[in-house]
């Protein structure tokens, strides 16, 4: 997996270089994600923002009919635009948290296993296999039944299970880098494992973690949204996109927009991040193709 | 003593166009001829364009590179304008190749015998099975593979590096080619194996009468097998001649420097001549002679920095040099090789 091209440039330079020559599809991806995120971040500063204010006299206002409620209102007369924005911040925040925690745990475990090898490697990767074999949904349902569902339970459960993919990649890279000559130098000098890993191995692995994380965002958003939808994640009255869909579903005949609008938001982010992350995977495929010649 | 011309390359340039549309020439106006049954060595260090030259001849340039000028005639037929289908028919039949890494030519998941059989069949598809098998065994015996019938049934990973290279040579010789192109065929191998592989190549050529273009950086190898030599530097041929004259009377300061920097028994323990600096990148070649910045020829002049020297007869028509001061190189060559 590792190769010199990947190791050569510092991460920042790689990101800049990647942004410079985007294809139209990739630009669409960036535009979609930026638009959705901007909407979520800006709306709370607008005068109409009131995600929790109920007004039963103005329930079920359809979108684009009332200037005060551009996206309409729900069954309790709450402003849908406000709830969509807040729900977006909640959903995306959870996704980011889950992905970052996973990447960090995976990277640390992978680096330790790959660099030290031997028994530590067997123990860590054996543990990873066990994690992988446990179905997340069943674990979450069981835990929710035991201690009651909550956002934090979902985040912790996902964080504890989803790092395995990251650990595998990090371990592979660490193992190949470990035997490169330039890593041998500090080892011969008697430098500590921390020195060697943090200076010579972690930077190369971090880039890969970033790429992996970017392609994971869409999947994790879908997963957490389905948990929200099932009532295993975010709890009302706090909105999230998954929760909004499930709330609106009861009124799907008289007010389909209540489910459709948050559904579109999820769709846009998933499509957007996938279009962007394709760049990295395509680049990687191209490189490995070039190596094979 | 001269035999008919088999391959004639004229003014061949290979390169790419950069973002501004300017040509970057990795191979620049290279020309040479290969006579039937003779051995031509293309000598140069990495980046000199020696491998790209032959890749262009074979129509095997890597993506992004193109032939910018020149002609390549094999038995009078222009290879550069030949349709891909006919070129492919020629490769592996009359033109055969051996590369540095035998695994580029071998399929790791197929038995070695089957791969050689495919080479035999490629151009004679209707050969009966028994005859193909017999030919495979015969070829493996010719390249010195012990117990060929048995070994033909094993996979490349079960073969050592030297044995794999023998198998590749067997494949190359399958259709009795007229020209064998060998690109650093022994570089990746141990010294004792190197010598064996060169012997195998010599034997194979002796039985088939094939000519050979040997691409290498190893002057020892060149001295042992070459008839003619082209010394390449920074994409151009800087000296061309027979092995006898080039080694004895270098007419280019680069050749003289290379010969001077050879570490040998006679100079053990003392300092060998070292060419200063390193070769220029293709995008940063100086306007004059590409070697000018590294040249220590006492007779070098301002001309070297401004005007690019063309290849022209130095001593006689068979010995050419691209140096403005080719008539003043002999003393320098003696001094650095002393």
């Amino acid at each position, binding site marked *: 997996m590792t190769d010199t091209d990947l190791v050569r440039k510092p991460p920042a330079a790689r990101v800049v270089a990647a942004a410079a020559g985007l294809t139209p599809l990739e630009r669409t991806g960036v535009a979609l994600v930026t638009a959705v995120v901007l909407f979520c971040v800006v709306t709370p500063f607008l005068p109409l923002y009131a995600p929790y204010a109920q007004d039963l006299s103005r329930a079920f206002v359809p979108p684009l009919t009332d200037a005060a409620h551009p996206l309409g209102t729900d069954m309790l007369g709450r402003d849908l635009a406000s709830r969509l924005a807040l729900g977006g911040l909640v959903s995306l925040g959870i996704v980011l948290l889950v992905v970052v925690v996973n990447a960090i745990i995976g990277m640390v475990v992978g680096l330790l296993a790959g660099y030290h090898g031997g028994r530590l490697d067997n123990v860590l990767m054996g543990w990873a296999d066990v994690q992988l074999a446990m179905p997340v949904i069943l674990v979450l349902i069981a835990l929710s039944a035991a201690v009651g569902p909550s956002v934090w339970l979902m985040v912790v459960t996902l964080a504890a299970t989803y790092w395995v993919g990251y650990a595998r990649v990090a371990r592979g890279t660490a193992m190949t880098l470990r035997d490169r000559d330039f890593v041998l130098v500090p080892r*011969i000098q008697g430098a500590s494992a921390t020195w060697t890993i943090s200076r010579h191995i972690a930077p190369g692995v971090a880039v890969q973690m970033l790429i992996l994380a970017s392609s994971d965002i869409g999947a994790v958003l879908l997963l957490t949204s389905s948990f929200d939808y099932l009532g295993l994640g975010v709890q009302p009255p706090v909105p999230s996109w998954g929760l909004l869909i499930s709330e609106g579903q009861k009124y799907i005949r008289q007010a389909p927009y209540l489910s459709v609008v948050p559904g579109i938001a999820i769709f846009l982010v998933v499509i957007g991040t996938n279009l962007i992350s394709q760049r990295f995977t395509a680049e990687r495929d191209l490189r490995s193709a070039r190596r094979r010649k | 003593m001269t035999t008919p011309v088999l391959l004639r390359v004229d003014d061949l340039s290979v390169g790419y166009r950069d973002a501004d549309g300017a040509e970057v020439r990795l191979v620049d106006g290279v020309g040479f001829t290969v006579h039937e049954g003779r051995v031509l060595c293309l000598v140069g260090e990495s980046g000199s364009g020696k491998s790209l030259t032959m890749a262009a001849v074979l129509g095997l340039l890597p993506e992004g590179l193109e032939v910018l000028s020149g002609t390549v005639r094999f038995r009078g037929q222009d290879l550069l304008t030949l349709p891909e289908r006919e070129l492919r028919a020629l490769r592996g039949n009359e033109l055969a190749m051996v590369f540095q890494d035998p695994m580029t030519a071998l399929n790791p998941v197929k038995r070695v015998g089957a791969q050689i059989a495919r080479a035999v069949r490629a151009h004679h598809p209707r050969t009966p099975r028994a005859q193909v098998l017999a030919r495979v065994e015969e070829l493996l015996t010719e390249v010195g593979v012990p117990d060929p019938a048995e070994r033909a049934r094993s996979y490349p990973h079960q073969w050592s590096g030297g044995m794999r290279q023998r198998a590749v040579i067997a494949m190359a010789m399958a259709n009795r080619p007229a020209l064998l192109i060998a690109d650093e065929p022994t570089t990746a191998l141990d010294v004792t194996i190197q010598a064996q592989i060169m012997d195998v190549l010599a034997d194979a050529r002796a039985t088939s009468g094939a000519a050979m273009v040997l691409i290498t950086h190893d002057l020892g190898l060149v001295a042992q097998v070459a008839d003619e030599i082209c010394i390449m530097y920074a994409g151009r041929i800087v000296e061309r001649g027979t092995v006898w004259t080039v080694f004895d009377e270098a007419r280019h300061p680069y050749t003289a420097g290379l010969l001077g920097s*050879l570490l040998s028994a006679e100079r053990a323990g003392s300092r*060998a001549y070292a060419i200063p600096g390193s070769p220029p990148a293709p995008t940063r070649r100086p306007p004059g002679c590409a070697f000018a910045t590294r040249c220590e020829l006492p007779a070098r002049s301002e001309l070297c920095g401004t005007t690019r020297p063309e290849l022209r007869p130095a001593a006689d028509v068979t010995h050419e040099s691209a140096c403005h001061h080719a008539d003043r190189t002999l003393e320098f060559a003696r001094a650095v090789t002393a």
Partner: protein
Amino acid sequence: MSAVLEIDDLHVRFTSRRGLRGRSVVHAVDGVSLTLGRGETLGLVGESGCGKSTLVRTVFGLNTPASGSVSILGQRMQGLAPAARRKVLSSVQLVFQDPYSSLDPRMRVHDIVAEPLRIAGRYAPERVVELLAEVGLDADVQQRRPAQFSGGQRQRIGIARALALRPEILVLDEPVSALDVSVQAQVVNLLMDLQERLGLSYLFIAHDLAVVRHLSDRVAVMRQGRIVETGDRDQIFDAPRHPYTASLLASIPHPDPYLRPGAPPRP
């Protein structure tokens, strides 16, 4: 002549698992004894798989010997406490074959050369400049990264790094075989200069016999984990005793066309 490096009856074995039960033991280094005298160059010649890489790794403590010992500057490494061992090991440094994989592509030249100093807690920026000058590089290369250098310059950077802790012994693992012909002589000359100036002792590992003959005072020939022949350079090259040494010598192509079979007489 006092010995700076002594390898005494060293055995290194690897066990590889075969199937469920079977184990096979590989004797990578099988009873090797070598002595490197102060200021001397000992050439170690052998083909791939002869065990020379394992031997080097064992000298640097990356492999544990099954038996035998490695002594550096009179100190027996086996059984030495880690701290003391590190101290002794700082007087032996390694120069690698491949100048492309031996320098971390992310790091600047300054940090590459400074790394051993920093690990040993003896970092001083002037020392880096001094080291670069020692190998013929200007101080202004410090902020550049390895990708901007040619193979020969990279090898100089690697040598500068190896000199950082003022070692007495350099283990040169095929230091010129990955370099272009026109650059090899530069690096060989540099190594000879450094040896003269700094009084270094070299363990020079190579398969290129011409380079070995050029640099070495004594030569050891290694095959299948054992030393088959040791001797003075001229004895080994002019009067080899072991048939393997003879066959190695016979396979060097001599860079003179008039010495090949069937050559015409030199005019």
